[in-house]
């Protein structure tokens, strides 16, 4: 085994697949081995049937069911995307401003921390009251969960450059902007991705929450309506789709991270071997 080791990506792919199989098998077994109502609870196979087998659910054509689902996914992705863009921009700007000014940091960091402790579900009606129904409210609600992880991670990244590096720039006559653009922002790049890994999947859930509470469109809104129509096939398919979207968002960030950081920063395995971050 040790003589011919699999490449890293293959290991990642394999472990991901195994995780997926374990999850789906667990879900399937939990329902088939217990006495829960098969009318209310659906298995992964049911979801598969809902998406791809004609006649299994109403409407009879699977293609028609998929055609109904697709625009919902589109709406949720749009809400999540706008929220992500909004939260990431705000988090980035906030982190930069806080790294430049200690006064701003001392003033606004506690506020951000307090905001972070307010449950999203409690904040949502306030946002709705201010901005009404629409993409702005979606962006704010989805942005709230993106903003904080970005602020904290990028903030840590901007401060990650060592004192000697800062001295180096100053000794050669470099100012605040030079330090920011040539040293701080590049060194914050790995931290940006660490923040995005938390933020991107969370944005999908937050977008769904917005739809669930205040909208008639998207995956979240249809969670509610499918339940009131007792369309449990759709309900479980929506839940599975939402989870898949959140996981895909995470996967996309990981992929992007690999592409962007490769060759620019030492791979993690090299760090572990050297026990040294530089």
């Amino acid at each position: 085994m040790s003589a011919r080791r699999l490449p890293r990506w293959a290991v990642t792919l394999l472990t991901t697949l195994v995780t997926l199989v374990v999850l789906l098998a667990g879900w399937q077994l939990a329902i088939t081995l217990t006495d829960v109502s098969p009318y209310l609870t659906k298995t992964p196979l049911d979801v598969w049937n809902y998406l791809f087998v004609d006649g299994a659910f109403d409407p009879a054509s699977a293609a028609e069911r998929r055609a109904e689902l697709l625009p919902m996914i589109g709406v949720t992705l749009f809400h999540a995307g706008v929220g992500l863009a909004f939260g990431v921009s705000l988090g980035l700007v906030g982190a930069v401003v806080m790294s430049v000014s200690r006064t701003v940091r001392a003033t606004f960091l506690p506020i951000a921390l307090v905001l972070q402790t307010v449950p999203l579900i409690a904040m949502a009606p306030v946002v709705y009251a201010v901005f009404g129904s629409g993409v702005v409210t979606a962006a704010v609600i989805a942005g709230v969960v993106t903003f904080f992880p970005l602020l904290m991670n990028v903030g840590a990244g901007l401060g990650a450059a060592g004192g000697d590096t800062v001295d180096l720039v100053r000794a050669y006559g470099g100012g605040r902007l030079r330090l920011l653009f040539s040293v701080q922002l590049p060194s914050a790049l790995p931290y940006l991705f660490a923040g995005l890994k938390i933020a991107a999947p969370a944005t999908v859930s937050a977008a769904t929450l917005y739809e669930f509470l205040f909208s008639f469109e998207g995956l979240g809104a249809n969670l509610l309506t499918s339940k009131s129509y007792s369309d449990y096939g759709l309900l479980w398919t929506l839940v599975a789709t939402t989870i898949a979207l959140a996981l895909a968002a995470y996967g996309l960030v990981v992929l992007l991270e690999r592409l962007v950081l490769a060759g620019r920063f030492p791979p993690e395995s090299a760090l572990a071997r050297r026990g040294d971050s530089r």
Partner: protein
Amino acid sequence: MTDTGVQLSALTRSFTSRAGTVQAVSDVDLQTPKGSFLSLLGPSGCGKSTILRILAGLDTPTSGEATVHGLSPAELRKEKSLGVAFQDHALLPWRSVEKNVRFPFEVAGVPVDKAWVSELLGLVGLESFADAKPWQLSGGMRQRVSIARALALRPSVLFLDEPFGALDDMTRQRLNLELQRLWMEQEATTVMVTHGIQEAVFLSDYVAVMSPRPGTIKEVIEIDLPRPRTIDLMSTPEFHHYVDRATQLLFH
């Protein structure tokens, strides 16, 4: 004044905290000729790094004055002909070796002298690693890049803060030989902070032995040994005489 290198006049730097005032540097006077190599030698906390930081414009004295070639640290910076290297190599991981050596040009706002950069890489024996990233190199190689970067602007003034302090003895010895060779070609007025006695004697024209609390210079030893100095020189009685003298000052 044209022949003056480093000049410290009644230089004092005190730090005030809740615990009271600490004199990191207390009333230090020192003068070296232009183009000479000065080492500030002493235990940690003797103020040697503080003096270097003041000279490099990274700290300001409480009172007194520090100049190099008659120029204040701010004026010196405007000349854009100084070089610095620290114990922490402070290389940027996302830049290649070559682009790290170019960095001072960009920060100082001077057009990059590409020919000189590649010549420098050759001088420190890293021409075949120009495109490598710092984290792909050994500790000694990284410190070589750091030295090459310090020489990028063809500095007339060079500040070195324990540049090889984090390296093993053998690598350090080898790099000291290389540093001497590079320094002899550049003729830069140099100030090096170190706690290595042999290293200080080997490289310097003047060794300022310092003592802590308050940080003062006990004595400046002029090292009158011919250059280029070799490893063999280190086993001569003359060399040992200087090392013994510095040791005596440090421990008594």
